[in-house]
């Protein structure tokens, strides 16, 4: 006869046993970096950014934005110590700036992550089509490959498959290794035989006018999207006070070095003056060409897996947002229901339907997928994340003004205020120069419509929040509580134990 496992537990050891099961800083860092999908940015975003914006100070932008986000992170991770919620940003905004602002923030987040997810099909399709034509002799349009990827992601989403564990570990390690190898190869073969540091200099950020910084900052933030996810694991962290900050800062540092290095190498290898032209001619090949040969081949294949992993990761981020909002009843409750194997089918299918509609619309209108789908929606997603971070910085200030706890002045006021001002400055510059960001003539409809979409989402969110306040006070009270909406508590341990 079998024996229960619990009888083997030694009395008084619950906390230690539980701590063993929780995540340490390396595991949280790994989770964050996995969502970042480095090769997607290095081979997809950076060359397209060089081409579309025509600006060359992208390496400096990565370093400066990393510093701004590090300042932002000081207050952000401090707030994680008091509010543990899987949808960190919007939960913070709801607590700091009020529940209607929280609903506005969550809709902004939903639009941003959706843009990031569906935009990836615009790179997946052409990349897969190119590989299939070159190596398999299969000639199919980009949208056919995008639809194939969409179908696989839809099925995996319904099976609730996260690419986790060793698969993601191998992919991530391989991607970073390839980027570093390409970077070293590029730096070892500089154009004209001279290593130029010009693109790393912060002075280059404003060389094309002050607005250039706003444009470059949006591109750079796009590379860091995912770093804000560390607090999602706060409830699972072994030492939330230490684990989450360590993982967040480590992720920022690593991302900054890898991306700044890669795009610096592209500029060095092709020459500062020619990198924009080279990017227009080569696209993702701008990175693959640094090392050439077998390294380039491996990088191209990994680019595909990276895009796919990123698309699946963002698909899962979006349905998790919808699920949390469904649980809170802020969005229809059906989004918060799960079926067999705890799969929230409705939320997952809605995101899939959005992806299908966007691919179909771009295919029907014959628009260039790489610039108009991948880069336009990608950067618009990045812009939305900046909006979200700015709101969050404001929320951190407001929250700590009411509940100072034992946080020092830097974390509860100076850092978030500085971050809010800098991020708001980036937003203003980006809106003014959105046409440059998209590579379209000033005043074009897309340059107005894409950022304006967030204003619409925010207004709808604010309005819906106020409607809930009047019509459904119980739902209103639970806004921002996420999974804890059912208990009505921020965290179970937010109160002192009874005597």
């Amino acid at each position, binding site marked *: 006869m079998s024996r*229960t496992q619990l009888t083997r537990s030694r009395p008084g050891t619950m906390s230690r046993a539980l701590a063993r099961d929780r995540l340490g800083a390396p595991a949280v860092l790994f989770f964050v970096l996995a969502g970042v999908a480095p090769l997607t940015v290095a081979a997809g975003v950076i060359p397209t950014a060089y081409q579309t914006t025509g600006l060359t100070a992208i390496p400096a932008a990565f370093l400066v934005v990393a510093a701004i986000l590090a300042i932002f992170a000081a207050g952000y991770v401090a707030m994680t110590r008091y509010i543990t919620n899987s949808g960190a940003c919007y939960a913070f905004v709801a607590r700091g700036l009020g529940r209607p602002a929280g609903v506005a923030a969550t809709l902004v987040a939903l639009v941003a992550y959706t843009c990031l997810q569906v935009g990836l099909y615009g790179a997946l399709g052409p990349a897969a089509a190119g590989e299939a034509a070159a190596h398999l002799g299969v000639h199919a349009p980009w949208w056919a490959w995008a639809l194939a990827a969409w179908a696989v992601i839809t099925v995996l989403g319904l099976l609730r498959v996260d690419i*986790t564990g060793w698969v993601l570990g191998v992919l991530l390690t391989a991607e970073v290794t390839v980027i570093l190898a390409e970077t070293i190869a590029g730096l070892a073969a500089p154009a004209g035989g001279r290593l130029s540091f010009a693109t790393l200099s912060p002075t280059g950020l404003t060389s094309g006018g002050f607005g250039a910084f706003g444009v470059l900052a949006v591109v750079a933030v796009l590379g860091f999207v995912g770093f804000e996810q560390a607090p999602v694991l706060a409830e699972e962290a072994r030492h939330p006070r230490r684990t989450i900050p360590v993982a967040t800062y480590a992720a920022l540092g690593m991302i900054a070095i890898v991306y700044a290095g890669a795009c610096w190498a592209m500029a060095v290898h092709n020459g500062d003056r020619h990198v924009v032209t080279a990017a227009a001619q080569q696209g993702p090949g701008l990175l693959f060409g640094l090392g050439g040969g077998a390294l380039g081949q491996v990088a191209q294949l990994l680019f595909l897996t990276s895009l796919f992993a990123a698309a699946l990761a963002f698909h899962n981020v979006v349905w998790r947002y919808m699920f*949390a909002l469904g649980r809170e009843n802020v969005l229809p409750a059906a989004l918060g229901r799960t*079926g067999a194997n705890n799969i929230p089918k409705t939320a997952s299918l809605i995101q899939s339907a959005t992806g299908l509609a966007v691919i179909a619309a771009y295919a029907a209108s014959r628009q260039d997928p790489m610039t108009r789908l991948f880069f336009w929606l990608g950067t618009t997603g990045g812009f939305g994340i900046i909006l979200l971070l700015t709101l969050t910085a404001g929320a951190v200030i407001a929250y700590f003004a009411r509940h100072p706890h034992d946080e020092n002045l830097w974390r509860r006021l100076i850092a978030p205020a500085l971050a809010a001002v800098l991020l708001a400055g980036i937003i203003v510059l980006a809106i003014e120069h959105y046409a440059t960001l998209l590579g379209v003539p000033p005043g074009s409809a897309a340059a107005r419509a894409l950022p304006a979409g967030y204003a619409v989402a925010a207004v709808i969110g604010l309005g819906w929040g106020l409607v809930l306040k009047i019509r459904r006070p119980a739902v209103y009270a639970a806004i921002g509580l996420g999974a804890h909406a059912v208990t009505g508590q921020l965290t179970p341990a937010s109160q002192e134990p009874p005597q």
Partner: protein
Amino acid sequence: MARLSGTGLIADDLYLMAHDDVTGRPFLQPRAVGLGLAGGLLAELMLLDMLRLTHGWVVTGDPGQPRDELGCCVLGLIASERELHPVRDWLAFLARTAAADVAVRLERAGYLRQTRLGRPRHGGRWVPADPDCAFAPLGRARSALGAAGAASAHATILAGLAVGSGLGQRLLPYGLPDSRRRLDMALEQLPPGLRELIAQTQAAVDSALLAHRV
């Protein structure tokens, strides 16, 4: 010997509901099953007034010993802790081994048997000894979806934990069209501590899902 009336223990009924009555395969992710069963084990002790829940903290209640070894073990571990812990921590702690522990209890009671295939200790194969007895808990939980006041506390807690851990689609279609609302009304009749336990169990399952841990 297995009987249609079951063992009378909530976690046992929940285990049978969460697994196929013929093959023994789980309907939920392992962590969700574990958290639901952990809630069931705590609920059993709360029904005996040996445990209480106060603002999310687990405290020991009346002196005494439960009838079963697993219940004694859970109570002993909680009593042996020097300081109080929130129910969320106890759910997470018990969830680690709850599925295997409850399966052993059901095996001893004659409701499950081990197959030669698979590794029971590693999420493997316990198979219901009698599919009818394994299906019966669904009928018991169903009573919580009917007329107000008709269900026992056992049935209501069972239904609440089942829906909270993700078995809503399996249970609710057996009730009336507004079964979710009826379940909410039945849950309202439970003592506050048990209501809180069910809510905390659901929150733990949802949190794990949102944190990519289910």
